């Protein structure tokens, strides 16, 4: 099978959807010229369906929701997830609620896409991971693809879905992550996690940069320590495939949730709570979260100091593997 970059897979997905359905269009700042993500596949749709917008994020989002209500299927590009703050209002107040306000009658098929996370070393407001800012809002779907295969299949599903979708791409993966992507058409349903690696000793639930770090760490731990790590990439946080996560936790009894966004209020807290509510009896060790520091991300290479890396994940696995709830309870009594 051919191997392509995350950016190319994403670009192919959008081009294929545009060719399949003439109501699909892409609008955003600098999308036609591809300043931050080069998309040669999209060139033929410039300017009518790949639309360079004036600098106005709030308008892009609100305008796109209006266009979706008129029967279009907009993909709205925000370049940096941090810029979505300017469009937060229409996404959470309008896109997420317009169907409910119509008594469940209207549909709002719109995709809000942006690259998130570190990677360009450009400081605190161009490097954030924002999924948890939106997880508390009913009415949205949230996609966090980690691999080229997933980003393509999930984007195609996002465009075809009749609900508003927040599509958060892994910025660091655009050109650094390559993977196998078939030439043939495929889509990936929302709400189905991927068991990226099977294991028996500890489960890691991770997406985007920490997912790739975990995959590398798992390999090393097997070779060096004989520890068998299972890795689950949820792929979509809303809907969330609780079943796959819980089944894995029930099997291994030890779980780490790893993400790039700050730990406090992060999606890892939600996933940990679900595990605690539904699989407490299976846990052999306390749940661990490995996440971003509760600190802004600095400019330059220091950005790597603020988010989980291989060492941190490895350390967490070695710690959790030696923890034992039963032993601790026995010691206390």
């Amino acid at each position: 099978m051919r191997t392509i970059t995350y950016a190319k897979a994403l670009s192919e997905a959008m081009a294929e959807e545009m060719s399949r359905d003439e109501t699909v269009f892409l609008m955003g700042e600098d999308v036609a010229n591809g300043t931050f993500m080069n998309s040669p596949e999209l060139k033929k749709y410039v300017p009518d369906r790949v639309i360079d917008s004036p600098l106005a994020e709030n308008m892009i989002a609100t305008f796109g929701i209006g266009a979706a209500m008129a029967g279009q299927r907009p993909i709205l590009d925000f370049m940096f997830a941090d810029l979505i703050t300017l469009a937060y209002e229409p996404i959470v107040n309008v896109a997420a609620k317009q169907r409910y306000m119509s008594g469940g009658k209207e549909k709002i098929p719109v995709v809000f896409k942006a690259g998130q996370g570190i990677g360009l070393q450009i400081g605190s407001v161009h490097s954030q991971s924002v999924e948890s800012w939106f997880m508390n809002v009913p009415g949205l779907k949230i996609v966090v693809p980690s691999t080229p295969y997933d980003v393509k299949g999930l984007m195609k599903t996002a465009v075809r879905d009749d609900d508003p979708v927040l599509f958060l791409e892994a910025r660091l993966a655009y050109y650094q992550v390559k993977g196998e992507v078939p030439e043939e058409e495929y889509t990936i349903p929302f709400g189905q996690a991927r068991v990226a690696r099977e294991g028996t000793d500890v489960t890691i639930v991770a997406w985007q940069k920490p997912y790739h770090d975990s995959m590398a760490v798992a390999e090393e731990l097997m070779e060096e320590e004989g520890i068998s790590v299972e890795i689950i990439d949820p792929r979509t946080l809303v809907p969330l495939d609780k079943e796959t996560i819980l089944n894995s936790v029930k099997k291994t009894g030890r779980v780490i949730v790893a993400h790039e966004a700050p730990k406090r209020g992060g999606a890892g807290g939600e996933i940990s709570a679900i595990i605690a509510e539904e699989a407490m009896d299976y846990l052999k060790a306390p749940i661990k979260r490995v996440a971003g520091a509760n600190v802004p991300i600095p400019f330059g290479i220091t950005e790597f100091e603020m988010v989980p890396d291989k060492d941190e994940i490895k350390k967490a696995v070695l710690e959790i593997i030696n923890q034992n709830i039963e032993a601790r309870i026995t010691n206390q009594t």
Partner: protein
Amino acid sequence: MVVSKNGGLNLKYSNQEIVEMYEVMLKARLYDNTIIRESNKGKTAGMFHLGNGQEATGAAIVTAMGPNDMMMPGHRMHTANLYLMDLQKFTSELVGTIEGYSKGVGAEFHCYSLEEGLFPIYSMLGGGFSHTAGYAFGMKKKNSGGVMISVVGDGGFTPGYNYEALNIAALMKLPIVFVVENNGWAVSTPVTKQAAVKDLSVRGPAFGIPGKTIEDGCDVLKVREAMDEAIEKARHFEPSLIEVKTRRIQGHYFGDQMKYRDGKVVEEEEKRHGDPIDRFEKVLLENNILNQTQIKATRERLQEEIDEAFNTAYKERKITREEARDLNMVYANVEGDLA
């Protein structure tokens, strides 16, 4: 043939069209007064923004609309809801029953009906210009021939995102009419504290959109003429901005004591604008379009329809806890674990 208040002849509209404009205004006034009556009896929930004094704007717009046109009303513009939507389903929504447009979860403020030409009001006032510009873009792409008429108040016209919308509408040559209904008050803040310019319509030309101010926005025929002209231009992809200066007789919401507005200010407003319905009735009588008996009969008929709608709604049930929590209300596609 009609003589408008300022004595000018107006040959544009048939008697039937004129009576229609009158009825739209009157029905909204009677409806808003009924909301007050029913709220005083404790039979309604939520907050109401009443349009007493501003009926001419909405009546002019809805009667100027063509069959494929769409309108986002101002947030105190029941003229639009009552003209475009079904009286019973709208009233059921206001009362909050399952038979309402949004099964009673949206209220009269948030419910909408795209198939009947009524676009949802934008809750964060001012954001609606971009929302409707996007819809107008969809209309243009589909070659629907339709025009979007988008309304906001003077307060709602203050936030910056309005101007992102004017800019994109001009750049994309969208079929849209932006209407600013300036009643002089943003809740309790007078427009003079919101804007340093005398006419808000001057903001249109800054973006390449012609602007026009109608000083006497309580003259329904004057507003209607401006709307006809702007809608025609929009049909040829020339957006415009119309400011309608009008008056808000009530407070911001029903129950607002209006301590910020003293008698002198109210007197000035009364002198400047009068009451749009009283004024139009005078025109109808003077020109023998309707007589006193007919006016009385019209009032009684409309009030009866309204009372019946409320009484029917009171007998309907509310949405249940389970129905209101149904994820199908939230998502069109409920695949996956969305709970």
